[in-house]
């Protein structure tokens, strides 16, 4: 029986793979939760593309500053040692390869590392890209966190993305409710199974081949 990880557990598992001292950009949704699960003894510095390095947790009602928000337009705080800067400097950090890790949600991720997370491509829909295409091209490591399948049961890990791409061959690793999966030159490769999840579960819910780990995984049962 499949059980797997909760949203929080996916975020916590992702945080395990981020080295101490990393400069990190977190997307909206599950990625935001990563900040709650920084492993003991490590410190991450959060970048938000609207001009802040050293983003802190949400403020209480009375410490709220209307001019201090994140890229998702939520109110945030700044930690001691933070810095403000304009958008060209902010995207220099991104495009110039200065950020270590970006954690993004997605609609689809392909076995070749392509990611599609900005548009369904439906006619009439209003396209909105924000900073996603800059982030996937510029940040050293792109981690994708996502439910393994859509609400209607379609795989989100696919052979080739059918939605318009955000970037080509940019994703390093995928964290889902079922497993941790690497993007390798050979395609998806299992790294770790969530508790109660079998390799067959993962294979059945993935729209492309999933290779077994180089090192056999411990069974998640």
């Amino acid at each position, binding site marked *: 029986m499949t059980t797997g990880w909760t949203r929080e557990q996916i975020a916590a598992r992702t945080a395990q793979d981020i080295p101490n001292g990393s400069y990190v950009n977190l997307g909206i949704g599950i990625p935001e939760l990563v900040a709650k699960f920084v492993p003991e003894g490590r410190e991450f510095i959060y970048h*938000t*593309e*609207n*001009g*802040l390095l050293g983003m802190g947790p949400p403020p209480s009602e009375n410490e709220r*500053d*209307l*001019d*201090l*928000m*994140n890229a998702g*337009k939520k109110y945030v705080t*700044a930690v001691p040692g933070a810095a*403000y*800067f*304009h*958008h*060209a400097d*902010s*995207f220099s950090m*991104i*495009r110039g390869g200065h950020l270590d890790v970006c954690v993004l949600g997605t609609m689809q991720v392909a076995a070749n590392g*392509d990611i599609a997370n900005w548009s369904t491509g439906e006619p*009439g829909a*209003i*396209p*909105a*890209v*924000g*900073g*996603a*295409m*800059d982030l996937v*091209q*510029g940040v050293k490591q792109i981690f994708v966190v996502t439910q393994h399948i859509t609400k209607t049961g379609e795989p989100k890990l696919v052979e080739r993305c059918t939605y*318009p*791409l*955000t*970037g*080509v*061959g940019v994703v390093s690793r995928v964290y889902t409710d079922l497993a941790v999966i690497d993007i390798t030159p050979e395609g998806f490769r299992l790294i770790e199974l969530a508790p109660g999840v079998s390799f067959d579960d993962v294979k059945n819910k993935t729209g492309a081949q999933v290779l077994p780990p180089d090192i056999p995984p411990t069974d998640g049962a």
Partner: protein
Amino acid sequence: MINKVCPSVAQAVADIPDGATVMLGGFGASGSPIELIHALIDHGAKNLTVINNNTGNGEVGLAALIGNGQVRKMICSFPRSSQSKVFPEYYKAGKIELDLVPQGTLAERIRAAGAGIPAFYTPTTVGTVLAEGKEQREFDGRTFVLERWLKAEYALVKCDTADPLGNLTYNKTARNFSPLMCMAATTTIVQVGRLVDRGGIDPEHVVTPGIFVNRVIHVPEPVHEDTLIAEGRCYP
């Protein structure tokens, strides 16, 4: 003595003609020059091309400018938000054009205009539909897309502190695109909450040097877009 202070937001925007390209500072509500935008609504210039990261929220500021039928085209990175109703309505009705530009490319194109760089190469959008029709080229084994500078006749910007020479500082993440837009526009118009004398800003802390600023208007207690929206306000 040089003094760029202009007595009112109305006078400051009075020469913006129909058909102008206007940059508006701000990222969402943060840094949005609400009083200047409302003065532009009162002024009534039409067929504007507006450059902003977003397309406004609620029925104030940029959303109200669009709702007043003054904007022909938006150049932005993210025209969606939970509180954005006016732009989607206009867009779906075919009453406004949209030029979608990734956020970092938007910032860099504006900066390039200010810096006299007519074009540059960027990795952003390579392999996506947004690169279609654009010139591509390899450098050091990687593919990049050619992007052009993005200029404007006017920039409307909100800052925190200014002096009469137009030296500016901003408040926190309200800085965002504003320093770049000040560089990229022929005429830069700035509303400031705190107007100080010359020497009132430490030369080490100036974010926008006055050379990039043409008009400074003192708006001592600016309203915040988020506050207006929370109160359900609309403009006019």
